[in-house]
Every structure is written in C-alpha cells, then in structure tokens.
C-alpha cells in the first residue's frame, strides 16, 4: 500500500452523488492494517443490508480520524459542510437537552460520506422519522462483567430467548462487536417510551429470576459479582442509541456488531473460552461483506413487530 504523507483526494460517485474522499491510505487499525479506504469500502459493501436498519433514524457518529488508538469522539450534531442531499432532523434528545440537528442515513452515498469522516461506529435511535416519539423495538444489553465466560454469556442469552419464547416472542440477537450481546424485540410502533422501557425491564428481571447466579442488575460496576452478565435494560429511551447492526467497532480486529442466528449462540454455549471478546472478533471488516453476500441478514425475516398486550397477558399467567 503506497502511503503518501500528503492528504490524497479521490472523487467517488455513489448512487449518482459526487463525493470527495481523502486519505484512503490512512491506517485506522494499527495492528490489523485496515485503512480508511477499507472502512469506506466496507460500509459500501454492506449498505444493502445495513441501510434498512438505519432508515429514518437519527444518526450519531463515533469518529476516529487518527485511528482507534487515539481519542475518538461521539458526534451527534451534523458536521459542517454536510452535503444538502443528506436529510436531517432537528430534535431534542430529552426535555433537558437543547435541539440538535441529526443526520439520517438513508443511502449508500451517506455511508461513504460518514466513513470518509472516519466514523467507525454508527449509532442509531430506537425510533424513526416521522414518529421519533415512538420506539419500534426494545433491546436488552447483555454485558459480561469481569470473569464472565463465553458459555455463561451464551447461557444467559439462551435463557432470554427461552423466556421470551414462552410468551410467544422470538427475539433477535446480535454481537455488539465488543464483548457482549444485544437481544432485540421489534415492537409495533404504538407504544410510548415508558411502556417500552417497562417491557425491557420486565424481560431483564425475568431473566435475572431464572438465572440469578449468572446475572446481575446492579448498575454500579463495583458491586457486580464476578463472572456474571449485567442485564442492561435502561438503554431504551428517547434520544438513546444502539450500535447499528453491521456497524464496525473501534477495537482490534475491526469487529462488527453482527446479527447472528440462535444456533451460533448455542454453539457458544458449548465453547470453553474464558472470555467473550475473542469470539466476537469472528465477525469483522474482513469477512462480513462476504458472509452477507452468501447468507443475507438473518434479522431481515426475523424482524416481526410484536404487540405488547398479548405478550404481557401471557407473561402474567406464566411469569407470576
């Protein structure tokens, strides 16, 4: 790879839009050698499967223009010089915040544009335009605490799946690309944030009830028992975000937050790895485009919005 020190500019045409990209040879993952050019190519390659998860959702970027070893930052407000063909929405994240103008990623050209800004990680809202006040899914973050093995994490995720199955829900699961898993339940867009949060909390507490030794609900990191999975249900809310499926992470190996089949989680349950993160790097910038081209997005058909009423009714008879 020829590395010219001068800022190198290239013209790209993506989906009919003209885009100038720079410093394609800049290495962003020092130990793996992935460059900004690789990042742009990756997001373009997975656009077809990523964009449906981003449509209409306010986007927050996690940028690392100097590589993952240097400090990066979260950027909610649109950057200066945003092309006029990228839609935006002005909203307040909560009643306490001022209005921020967010961009929305609806096409491949936008992905190329943000990747050119070295936006390694893409975070999106739980709701979509024009109904930003209405969540369309909930998420439980399974966050392994120190000493938690891969088998324990998988066991907890499978418990989540089984409990939800008992009330008629088939949840979706993805790796975070870090060390944990996200369990997601799509909702019909007719509930408010409190109801969504209440539902997420209900699921988390139920999982804790059935797996008390392997889970913790303690928000204070210091108090969590070693080897447990922290069940985080407070990530759902207006203005809160989650790592978009297929987003890359700013970690060694350039891992991707990958939607996976429950059979993969069952396989993790049988593995003997002491920690969880190494397994998660199996899905990364280097192989995800090919995996998607071959098998597609396993969330695509699984994304069935649920009505809460029958689920709660079933839960009342089974979980009391």
């Amino acid at each position: 790879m020829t590395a010219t020190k001068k800022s190198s500019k290239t013209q790209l045409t993506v989906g009919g839009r003209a885009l100038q990209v720079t410093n394609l040879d800049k290495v962003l993952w020092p130990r793996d050698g992935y460059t900004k050019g690789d990042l742009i190519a990756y997001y373009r390659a997975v656009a077809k499967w990523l964009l449906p998860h981003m449509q209409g959702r306010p986007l927050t970027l996690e940028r690392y223009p100097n590589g993952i070893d240097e400090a990066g930052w979260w950027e909610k407000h649109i950057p200066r010089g945003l092309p006029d063909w990228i839609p935006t929405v002005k909203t307040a994240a909560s009643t306490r915040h001022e209005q921020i103008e967010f961009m929305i990623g609806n096409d491949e050209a936008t992905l190329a544009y943000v990747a050119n800004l070295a936006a390694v990680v893409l975070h999106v809202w739980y709701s979509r335009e024009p109904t930003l006040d209405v969540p369309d899914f909930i998420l439980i973050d399974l966050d392994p605490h120190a000493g938690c093995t891969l088998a324990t994490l998988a066991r907890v995720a499978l418990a989540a799946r089984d409990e939800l199955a008992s009330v008629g829900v088939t949840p979706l699961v993805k790796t975070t690309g870090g060390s944990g898993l996200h369990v997601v339940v799509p909702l019909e867009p007719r509930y408010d944030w409190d109801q969504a949060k209440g539902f997420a909390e209900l699921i988390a507490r139920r999982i804790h009830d059935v797996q008390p030794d392997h889970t913790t609900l303690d928000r204070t990191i210091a108090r969590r028992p070693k080897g447990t999975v922290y069940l985080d249900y407070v990530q759902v809310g207006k203005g809160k975000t989650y790592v978009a499926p297929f987003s890359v992470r700013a970690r060694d190996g350039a891992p991707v937050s990958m939607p996976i089949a429950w059979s993969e989680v069952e396989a993790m349950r049988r593995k003997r790895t002491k920690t969880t993160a190494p397994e998660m790097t199996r899905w990364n910038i280097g192989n995800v485009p090919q995996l998607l081209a071959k098998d597609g997005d396993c969330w695509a058909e699984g994304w069935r919005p649920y009505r809460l009423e029958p689920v709660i009714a079933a839960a009342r008879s089974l979980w009391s």
Partner: protein
Amino acid sequence: MAHAIWSGAINFGLVTIPVKLFTAVRTNDLRFNFLHKKDDGRIFNERHCTVCDEKVEYADLVRGYEYEKGHYVTLGDDDFKSVLPEATQSVDIVEFVELDQINPMYFDTPYYLEPEKKGRHAYALLRESLREANKVGIARVVIRSREHLAALKPNGEALVLELMHFADELVEQSDFDFPELKEKVAPAELKVAKMLIDSMSSESFEPEKFHDDYREAVMAMIEARVAGEEVSTPETKRPAATNVVNLMDVLQRSLEQTKRGGVSARPKAVPAAKPAAKKAASAAKPKRKKSAA
C-alpha cells in the same frame, strides 16, 4: 512486562547478585485535565515573574532555598549535579536485623528485585536464608538520583526492597497527647473489649475484599457518559427484589389506559407495587408531551 528502573546488583561481603529493580505499587489515581467550562479548551499554566511582571521561560528559572525570610540561596542544575550520589545501581546491605526489630512506621514504598539469569540460584539462597533466620537486610540504595534507606525482605517467591524513612523523618510520638502506658485499665474492661474484637475478627486478611468505592463510583459515572447515557442522581440502594409481578401490573394498566384514552398516561403507582412502580414512575419525565398511540 513492566520496564525495570535499573539493572544492578545486591551486594554484601563478597556476594554479588545481579538483579533488576521494578516498582511494586501501581497507583490507581484517576487523572484529569483542567478544561475551560465554556469550550472544553485545555488549560496551560504560565510562569509569571513578580518583579519584572513578565512571562518567564523554564530555562530562565533557578531553585532558591529560603534560609531566612526573604533571603535566598540559589542553586542551579550544575550545583545539584555536583552533589549527585554515584549512581551505583546497587543494593548495598550494611547489616541484618530481625524483622520485629523494625517499627513498621519506617516502611514506605515496596519495590521488586528480579534476579538476572546468572543470579537466580544465589537469589533463591539469600531469600531462603533470610526467611529461615527471620531476618531482613538493611541496605542503602540509589533510585532516580536519590539515596534511600531500605530493607530487603523475603516475600513469597520474591525479595522485596522496601524503602524506609530516615529516623528524623518520623514524627515523634511525644509531639502528641497520647494516653500514657502506665494509665490504668481494669482487667474486666479489657476482657469485654477483647470479646468485642474477637467477635469482629477475621480468620485471614483478604485485601481483595476492600475496594476504592469512591474511585469506582467516579469511573462508573465516566463510563456512563462515554456510552452516551445521561448521568442522573445516584439511585438510592434498592433491595434486589425482582418484582416482575408488579412490573406486569403496571405495564398492563398503562396499556389499558392507552387503549381507552388514546393518550399514553404515566403508569399509576399502586401501593403494594412500590419498588417497581417507583422505577417506572421515575423513568417518566415530569413534563410529558402527548405521544402517538
């Protein structure tokens, strides 16, 4: 693998054991930078002279020792260099004493000594002889241009070099007002006090039990902010009651209200459902706008 402070040797009599010196304590202190509230700008300090009222460069500074109010003796870098102890990079043992002879208040900071390949056998021999004799070596050692008094002690598989304070550095007990040794304490009182101590006694000391709670709380807050979460006031300690039933009640009520009124209301708290309802209620923002049903 940590970086050694120096490579040298333990010396006494005719014995030389080549070793490397390492710090044994890594402080956990959180480091912060000062930033300007308005724009998060980094702050740097300027050196300002009180006589000429101007900014001064670091190179134009000299150290002054105030020997009398307002009177200084100045010392430059060359002056300090001239007194520098020979950087011998060795632990020179001058005598051996029993460990109990040394008041623990003298001990300051521990360092590890790791033997070089050639010195491994002699190192192990010294360590075991000290352990059997229950003695420690008193030594002089130079670390980073300063000379220290230190004790060489066996500790598990290691020989630890524990830096000590010099005698004149310890504050005398006579400077304080402690109850005298000959003050009377009744045997009965002593017995009761000892029973209290026994009831709170632990079989063994497990330092891992103790955490730097304050530091961990600060780190948790920092991590929450990094993850984009809002940091609210710390939650009051709640019992780990998993009130799934109450949560379901609250949710069901909320869903029914939505169905009826077409406007989602804040879940009403039910007296029996205190812990969960408190959570759901506090999650609702005080000023709620209407939202789509």
